[in-house]
């Protein structure tokens, strides 16, 4: 009951937030522009993929961290009420993740819906894009929650959040490229699959690229990736890995929230 109450009021707060509205509006304008002027169809989905993979985690982690630091005094006041910490935690996380995910789904989904561009062969990749974006929102909101609970200093916390985003978006890939070029004489496909699973943004990227039949561009590696990620086991493992990426930080944040001195 506490969780639902906190969730409801936080949702109400963020629904009116100019930042969340601006985020949804920017995605909406971008999607509409890509559908109208960017060639439409698969091209739009591919362009949106790049936006989603960079912007969704960035907005989720930065906005989430800032919102939680800003709410710290109010969380103290809520904790001074006769409510359990577990319920409060659940309400706080859901109240933060759901409006951000809704902002993404509406911003990207609405133009496809009213232009009718998400029908036919594009329905699968579009659903995958919406699913990946939603899961990435859940993952990086959980990471934001963990960061804000682990680091008391707002500036350091925000710095760590941006560093984590940068690592997942760029540094990790740079490391993989370095590894691939250094050991190019060895069969690296399987280790690369393992490394891909370790990064949620890479998971989203590979899943979508394969759905858009662009695996051929990736040569032999693309074939190996397609065989793995295209199989039922691979898809299941990928979704499981993304869910684990959400559950892991969330569980750590929950334990921290229950023990933390506020």
């Amino acid at each position, binding site marked *: 009951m506490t969780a639902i109450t906190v969730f409801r009021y936080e949702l109400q707060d963020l629904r009116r937030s100019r930042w969340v509205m601006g985020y949804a509006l920017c995605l909406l304008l971008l999607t509409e522009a890509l559908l109208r002027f960017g060639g439409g169809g698969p091209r739009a989905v591919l362009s949106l993929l790049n936006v989603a993979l960079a912007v969704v985690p960035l907005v989720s982690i930065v906005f989430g961290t800032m919102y939680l630091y800003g709410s710290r005094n*109010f969380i103290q006041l809520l904790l001074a009420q006769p409510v359990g910490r577990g319920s409060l935690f659940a309400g706080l996380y859901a109240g933060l993740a759901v409006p951000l995910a809704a902002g993404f789904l509406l911003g990207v989904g609405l133009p496809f819906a009213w232009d009718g561009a998400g029908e036919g062969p594009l329905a699968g990749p579009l659903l995958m894009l919406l699913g990946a974006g939603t899961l990435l929102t859940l993952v990086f909101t959980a990471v934001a929650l963990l960061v804000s609970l682990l680091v008391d200093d707002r500036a350091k916390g925000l710095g760590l959040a941006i560093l984590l985003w940068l690592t997942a978006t760029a540094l990790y890939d740079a490391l993989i490229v370095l590894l691939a070029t250094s050991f190019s004489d060895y069969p690296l496909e399987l280790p690369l699959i393992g490394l891909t699973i370790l990064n949620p943004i890479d998971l989203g990227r590979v899943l979508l690229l394969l759905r858009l039949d662009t695996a051929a561009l990736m040569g032999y590696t693309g074939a190996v990736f397609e065989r793995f990620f295209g199989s039922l086991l691979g898809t299941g493992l990928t979704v499981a890995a993304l869910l684990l990426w959400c559950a892991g930080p969330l569980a750590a944040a929950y334990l921290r929230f229950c023990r933390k001195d506020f």
Partner: protein
Amino acid sequence: MTELAPPYPIALPCTVIEAAGISKHYGRTPVLRRIDLTVKAGRVTAILGPNGAGKSTLIRLLLGLARPDEGSVTVAGQTAGSDPSYRAGIGYMPQHPRFPENLTGREVVRLLRELRGHAVPEDDELFDAFALGPQLDKPVRSLSGGTRQKLNAAVAFMFRPNILILDEPTAGLDPVASRVLKARILSARQAGITILLVSHVLSELEDLADDVVFLLDGAVEFQGSLRRLKEITGENRLEQAVARLMQRKAS
């Protein structure tokens, strides 16, 4: 004025808050050092001390927001922090209220009422007393600091608690609201509510406090009635009595 007595009055023991040998460190820094403390029911107890003396940490321990490294805190017979239900009897006014910016004051009030299971009926008179009426329907972000502090004060009194914990309650309030708050505190005392008051404004504590707990460097330097403090320091004013205590400690 509205009835201030708690809706379901419970027979409080004579000592309503008891801290036994509590210590608290933040990192390697000791904030509270083996503190023993008792707060008597139905009295106004002022917690005094310079910045960094451990006043806010003590409040956080009482509310179960932090846990002591050593010792135990009991509030109305229940161990603080173990079962949140004991906080149903506490009204808390934090020093720095930060309500969600996009909610209206009325929505903040509703949220807190829902969290407490609508334990008491709505009390418009309380909000009118703080001249909050029309302000309650505006988003928090558009309210001035003083209005937010009035909302903060009203929220603490709203549930007719057995224990009131007020952290720097008059900070940021205009003189009128400050006078309303002081009248509320005195009425609450008359209704038998235990009040814990943290403030730097010693002159206002002089009119309100029955007992004084003076913290210095994380230890209790004095604990007793205001009259006793004045007697042992030979001073007539609280401000001078506190200065005398600090001088003694320094020498």
